[in-house]
């Protein structure tokens, strides 16, 4: 009998603890929102230098896109909160309201426009080819037939290669893995956005080189949900303003992606 009573007392306190902790969480959330300025949650795949990546020295999220969106948030007096997510699920995450906007070197495409809205383009890019320095076979996109090509899952590079060339495509979770495999000889070429390709090639100019021309024209935009038209308008206005102030040009210079 005695032990039964003690058990009940313990159980009672356990439940009490459970509920009180619930309460605490709730209160915290509330104060979090009411006291500070409005929070804008931003989804990004931080594996794409120089647009968005985790700095090796400081461990901080940096890049062209990050600077740009911080500026936009400052203009709109939002407090930015970044969420790092894999690129292949980034649109689904936006639709599920895990974050409010995406800035992740994302090309505006017809397929994506069916799901989400894009801001005005803030950067012009295109697909280019990277090969090992000793490769003499591949000179342009027409030499890619029957070659092993690395791309990043869910990117326009993947879509382009799958559409145009009849060849083996290997989709990687992030483009840096593809560069490791190119270096190790498992791939013949990588098809990816030109600024990021340049970034990797500049870092290891003794191993890689860019061949051929940029063979697609792509515009990067900031993505928002279809229903968030007001937010989109605000962002578009700020982008126009930043263009006029030539802030974008300056920022491109800082990140060496003119």
């Amino acid at each position, binding site marked *: 009998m005695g032990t039964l009573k003690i058990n009940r007392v313990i159980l009672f306190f356990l439940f009490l603890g459970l509920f009180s902790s619930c309460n605490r969480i709730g209160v915290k959330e509330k104060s979090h929102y009411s006291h500070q300025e409005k929070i804008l949650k931003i989804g990004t795949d931080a594996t794409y230098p120089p647009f968005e990546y985790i700095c090796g020295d400081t461990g901080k999220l940096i890049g062209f896109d990050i600077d740009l969106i911080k500026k936009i948030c400052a203009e709109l007096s939002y407090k930015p909160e970044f969420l790092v997510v894999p690129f*292949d699920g980034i*649109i689904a995450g936006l639709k*599920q309201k895990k974050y409010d906007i995406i800035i992740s070197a994302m090309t505006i495409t017809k397929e994506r426009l069916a799901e989400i809205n894009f801001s005005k383009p803030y950067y012009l890019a295109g697909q280019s080819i990277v090969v090992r320095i000793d490769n003499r076979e591949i000179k342009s996109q027409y030499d890619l037939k029957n070659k092993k090509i690395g791309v990043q*899952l*869910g990117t326009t590079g993947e879509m382009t290669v799958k559409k145009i060339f009849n060849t083996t495509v290997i*989709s*990687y979770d992030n483009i840096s893995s593809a560069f490791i495999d190119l*270096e*190790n000889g*498992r791939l013949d070429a990588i098809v990816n956005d030109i600024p990021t390709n340049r970034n990797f090639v500049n870092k290891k100019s003794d191993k890689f080189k860019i061949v051929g021309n940029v063979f697609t024209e792509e515009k990067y935009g900031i993505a928002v949900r279809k229903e968030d038209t007001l937010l989109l308008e605000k962002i578009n206005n700020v982008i126009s303003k930043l263009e006029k102030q030539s802030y974008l040009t300056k920022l491109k210079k800082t990140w060496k992606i003119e």
Partner: protein
Amino acid sequence: MENRIIDIIIKEILLFYKIIKFLIPSIPITIQITLYSFLLAVILGLIIALFRISYVKIFQIISKIYVDVLRGIPLLVQIFFIYFGLGKILKLEQFTAGVIAISICYSAYISEIFRAGILAIPKGQYDASKSLGMNKYQTMRYVILPQAIRIIIPPISNEFIACLKDSSLVSIIGMRELTRAGREFYSQYFVDFEIWFIVGMFYLIMTAIAAKFARYIEKKLEIP
């Protein structure tokens, strides 16, 4: 109103059909990865287990280190290590690298199962075999292992199911197995619920078949 509901249902059925058609070619790859790596893991595991119970000290030490090291490192890290880490020297294909990583990792677990199974056989059995004039090999082959297998089958089939599920980790190095195919579809068409529901179902069907097969073998080996 009714028309709209029917429209939605038809749309959903078409989507399911599209997803299933997209996923089907990747299922044999998942099965291949699982079967190859599990077979290798069982062979390796048995060798390591026999090393562990042998009387040669150095074999014991090797097997102990092998098990402790491989059991202590996440499979995902092992896959990264074998594929990217050793990429400069070995240049393994994705499939080979994945199979090697899974089989090495699982051999550590399986060797422990084998060891437990073998140690569970009473000492009297060894004495009895000796009295019949059997040597060490014959004792193992004809007396101990046949009995140990009966004990081992349930935990081994457990490992097999775990191995089947863990084969999805190979998707991280770009191997186009079931999970990867799911992610590819997801990244193209942005449907989430349907795709992961169907991928999960496919895994469930495969593991259910494996479990059924394990039970069948168990029944077969039962002492009447």
